[in-house]
């Protein structure tokens, strides 16, 4: 798309030229190194072009010269706010390729950590969204505090706070440490109060309502056409969640609801995430209650050699459907590792969400789409 001044020729009478504004790549509201070239007619957005690639690390190519287990460390860095779900998506693809089974206890641990990760990621999405809305860091710090507790739990399990590398081919790397059940139940008891507090803090705030309700609606049909997945799709009234539609691990045993709203505007996208955190907390509690005894890992070689073949496997990650496409040529390293990154594909609708709205809404639209630049560029 070429951004030119001729695109808005109906303003020629007034002798006004559209202004091309660069937001980013170092703009604090762009969630990382991401650039938006916005063509403005006064306050109104005429055209938007997302420019990305500043954080490109070549994860797909790097994966081709590492063994299957070593690639797990690369997947932590795709969407650095939800490393657990990235790990899970990748190891599920390798397990499908190599035919490795997973013990039941490991499946429960995977679901539990993935749902804790969803809480942490949605907290960040909400916090930075409200940060972008002009409430400077105070609401963000509320979210950061809860996320910090989730990261403490992850540090107890796997020793790291962001780059977990927790999942392994055929299970998880560690069993739970002693004292974990007390810690996680303490967090969950506290978290319910905190979510109620967020709702008191946010949901009736007139500024938030007027800035977000009815702004930039996305219809369900258009969302499906653009392959939008995750909370953004469910906010548009499409009840599609891989955890329900194609249950993996032990999600078929979990009791949870999928929050769906009909309007698809900014408010709904925020509200869906807020509700999903509650459902995730429910699932974590259920996992801890039903956790069976047993081993947490089947013995798979560190340098595993899957048979020749190809596989695509996707899960419902925090931002949408995260899929890995792996091709094996029988050696210790994948021949091809393709990544379907939800953030990247959700970006498709950014342009049409922003056109016709104000510049201030552009930031909010971008915030509610919940883009993670590490995953867009990978």
């Amino acid at each position: 798309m070429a951004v030119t001044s001729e695109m808005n020729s109906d303003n020629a009478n007034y002798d006004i030229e559209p202004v091309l504004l660069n937001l980013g790549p170092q703009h604090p509201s762009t969630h990382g190194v991401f650039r938006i070239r916005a063509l403005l007619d006064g306050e109104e957005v005429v055209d938007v072009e997302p420019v990305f690639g500043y954080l490109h690390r070549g994860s797909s190519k790097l994966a081709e010269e590492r063994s299957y287990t070593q690639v797990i460390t690369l997947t932590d860095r795709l969407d650095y706010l939800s490393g657990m779900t990235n790990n899970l998506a990748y190891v599920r693809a390798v397990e499908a390729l190599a035919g490795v089974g997973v013990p039941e206890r490991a499946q429960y641990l995977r679901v539990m950590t993935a749902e804790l990760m969803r809480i942490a990621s949605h907290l960040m999405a909400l916090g930075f969204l409200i940060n972008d809305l002009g409430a400077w860091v105070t609401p963000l710090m509320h979210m950061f505090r809860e996320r910090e507790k989730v990261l403490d739990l992850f540090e107890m399990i796997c020793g790291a706070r962001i780059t977990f590398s927790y999942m392994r081919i055929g299970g998880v790397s560690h069993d739970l440490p002693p004292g974990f059940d007390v810690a996680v139940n303490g967090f969950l008891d506290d978290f319910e109060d905190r979510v109620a507090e967020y709702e008191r803090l946010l949901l009736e705030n007139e500024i938030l309502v007027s800035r977000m309700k009815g702004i930039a609606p996305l219809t369900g049909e258009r969302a499906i056409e653009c392959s939008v997945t995750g909370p953004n799709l469910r906010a548009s009234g499409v009840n599609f969640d891989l955890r329900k539609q194609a249950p993996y691990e032990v999600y078929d045993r979990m009791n949870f609801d999928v929050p769906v709203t009909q309007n698809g505007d900014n408010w709904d996208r925020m509200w869906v995430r807020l509700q999903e955190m509650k459902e995730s907390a429910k699932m974590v509690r259920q996992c801890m209650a039903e956790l069976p005894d047993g081993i947490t890992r089947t013995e798979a070689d560190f340098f595993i050699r899957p048979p020749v073949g190809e596989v695509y496997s996707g899960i419902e990650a925090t931002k949408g459907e995260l899929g890995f496409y792996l091709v094996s040529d029988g050696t210790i390293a994948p021949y091809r590792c393709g990544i379907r990154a939800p953030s990247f594909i959700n970006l498709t609708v950014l342009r049409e969400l922003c056109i016709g709205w104000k510049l201030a809404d552009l930031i909010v639209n971008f915030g509610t789409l919940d883009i993670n630049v590490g995953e867009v560029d990978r």
Partner: protein
Amino acid sequence: MALFGAGAIKGLMVTLGYIRRKPFTTQYPEDKLEQSPRFRGNTFVWYEERCTGCATCAKGCPLGIIRIVTHPEPHSQVGSDYHVDVFDIDTGRCMFCALCVEVCPYDALHMGGDFEQASYGREDMVISVEDLKAMPKKPRTQFRPQMEMIGHTGKDELEEHEAGRWSL
């Protein structure tokens, strides 16, 4: 329609409620948070007597930043014992995934818990074999959950016969 601004005032009451609570943050250089026993710090703990110089850690490293040079001990059986001359771990490139710790078949390499390892140059971040010998032997329980069963929390020094999985 309620009074405009009532929702914002309701939100402010939440903020007001925080006056009575203790702060969640800590003043870092003075107060330090305690890490969990499995915490992966920026250092490594290496037990020389346990290490055979097999270089499995170097093979397992996703980045290839471990460099090992060995020579056979003169008076040992062939292939049974190697003296480690060079054991360079370039922590400037390390991502502390602990895969080297996971693959070590003799439990000779462990993660350490220190994280204040700032230096003025990249060359200072390479941990040499002398540094490894001199580092305090306070292994973290990352990939060594058997050490949690003897009550180790990563804060105490462990002898080399206690550190491995054979101590149980």
